[in-house]
């Protein structure tokens, strides 16, 4: 019986089906393709997670990770009692919090203004200009800014000749440093931040504007009653997810702008971890501070995600 059924089938179809089945069963090429990524992630993504145990040990390089003695939560206790680290946590939350606020508000307003531009050549030119700083490393921006903001730099000499202002130590005095750091961060990021709002604006249903127009609404009223309400969900999503960054004040920027004069008000967790943890060799303490930062960030991300889900029905997966 078997042979007759086989013979009845057209040979082309049979081999095609068989090949399809063989293809589906033969998954080793797919596993092989995933292999390089898996190996790299196992080594550089997962192995360091094991290294986190040194936060609970007194890690000495010559004893190795396993040979070092356990100390429990000693490093965490020290972190909360040591005045320097408390100050660093306050600095970080303050600088990061200001950055988060302005990096939501400024791009939001800028996107609204950009949305009113009807001439596409102007719109594209402005977009090209404002996105650029985002792609330049803080090493180079830091080099430029320290030069421009020096006491005899171009900014101070212009302020002096235009308004008669005495030279300001933008990067040498604590409060001015915080101001400069937040302002220059907004300067670097605001253009890029408009993208998400512009995308949301492109999705607003035009018939809403038409209806408002028929009702005699001015453009200002349309903005208040149509444009802004349709952007609220995305603002909520961006804002709540940004909460996870409250202890993330941007290492690259601070490290390339700060100096010992402003450590008191400008030192943040990441720069503190680098200096104490790596330069001074206090690996365990540095790791403990790093873990504290990640845990706070993660908890806030989860809370933010739940709020975003409740308020704006946002799902990542």
């Amino acid at each position, binding site marked *: 019986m078997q042979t007759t059924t086989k013979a009845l089938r057209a040979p082309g179809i049979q081999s095609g089906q068989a*090949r399809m089945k063989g293809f589906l069963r*033969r*998954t080793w090429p*797919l596993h092989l*393709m*995933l292999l390089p*990524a*898996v190996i*790299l*992630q196992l*080594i*550089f*993504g997962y*192995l*360091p*997670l*094991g*290294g*986190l145990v040194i936060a609970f040990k007194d890690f000495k390089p010559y004893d190795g*990770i396993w040979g070092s003695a356990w100390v429990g939560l000693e490093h965490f206790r020290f972190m909360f009692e040591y005045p320097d680290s408390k100050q660093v946590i306050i600095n970080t939350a303050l600088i990061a919090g200001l950055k988060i606020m302005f990096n939501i508000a400024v791009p939001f307003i*800028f996107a609204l*203004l950009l949305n*009113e531009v009807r001439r596409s050549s*102007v719109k594209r030119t*402005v*977009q*090209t*200009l*404002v996105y*650029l700083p985002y*792609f*330049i*490393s803080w*090493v*180079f921006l830091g*080099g*430029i*800014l*320290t*030069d*421009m903001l020096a006491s005899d730099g*171009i900014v101070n000499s212009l302020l002096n000749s235009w308004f008669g202002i005495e030279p300001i130590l933008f990067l040498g005095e604590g409060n001015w440093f915080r101001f400069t750091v937040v302002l220059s961060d907004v*300067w670097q990021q605001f253009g890029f931040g408009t*993208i998400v709002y512009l*995308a949301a604006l492109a*999705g607003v249903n035009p018939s809403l504007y038409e209806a408002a*127009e028929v009702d005699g609404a*001015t*453009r200002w009223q349309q903005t208040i009653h149509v444009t802004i309400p349709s952007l609220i969900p995305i603002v909520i999503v961006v804002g709540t997810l940004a909460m996870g960054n409250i202890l993330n004040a941007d*290492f690259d920027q601070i490290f*390339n702008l700060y100096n010992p004069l402003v450590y008191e008000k400008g030192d943040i967790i*990441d720069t503190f971890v*680098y200096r104490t943890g*790596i330069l001074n060799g206090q690996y365990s303490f*540095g*790791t403990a501070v*790093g873990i504290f930062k*990640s845990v706070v960030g*993660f908890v806030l991300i989860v809370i933010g995600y739940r709020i975003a889900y409740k308020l704006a029905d*946002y799902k990542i997966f």
Partner: protein
Amino acid sequence: MYYKSTGYRTFTVFNYLVLLLAGTLCVLPIIHILAVSFSASAPANAHLVGLWPVDFNVESYTKTMNNPNFLRAFLIAIERTALGTFITMSVITLAGYALSKDSSALRSRSVYAWFFVFTMLFNGGVIPTYILIRNLHMMDTIWALVLPGAVQVFNMILLMNFFKATPKELEEAALIDGAGHFTILFKVYLPLALPAIATLSLFSIVGNWNAWFDGLLYINDYRNYPLATFLQTIIVTQDFSKLNPDVNELKNISQRTVKAAQIFIGILPVLLVYPYLQRFFVKGIVLGAVKE
């Protein structure tokens, strides 16, 4: 129509001014540094240069180009960028293709997916990674710069979605003709995904070129620094403790025009890539960031 009213027209004039001013403000620092780099060193040191060179000359560039330390760092940065981009793109293209198959073709697909997504959410941080690199004896090698960040999970997911959107009929046709997964990837999917791969490569190029902290961490000998790390050490931090106190180097750096020229050369590759980059990235990032 609202845009014909006098009030709105006034607003439009004001609006264009604000936008163009903001746009200009974003590039002024770069123009300033460019102007300083092409100026003579006396007016530059006296801070007389604004947005246009004073006593135009290229002395700072000839000095920079004759500085062996700078040239070495520049070449290392190119090597690092080329190698890093090649490794990243190869690894994420292969993995992205495999992950684009549904779970009937690759039953362990979701295990792999979570394996990668997990590393996006959790990582060991600076110090455990630093200890690992040291234990692997990768200090002072280029591999310490290109391997740890090679698997860009976010970009891998973007590529995966791109492959998923490719019509299945093309794959089936190739299957009937007896092609295997590797042939299908390289002959069918890759040519179609070329624009996406080009865009992600540009991002990778910019990222590798701009990276400086890993050089500071993993490279002890300043002669092996890539350009961004080199400039970070001598221009931004002005930390000469790692460098041999080379008299010529110190003399060069005290010159504002030479500093400016070095910074500008550091930015230049990004400026060259940027026109191509910005044409694509809006689309790509919106794809990943906003979910309808």
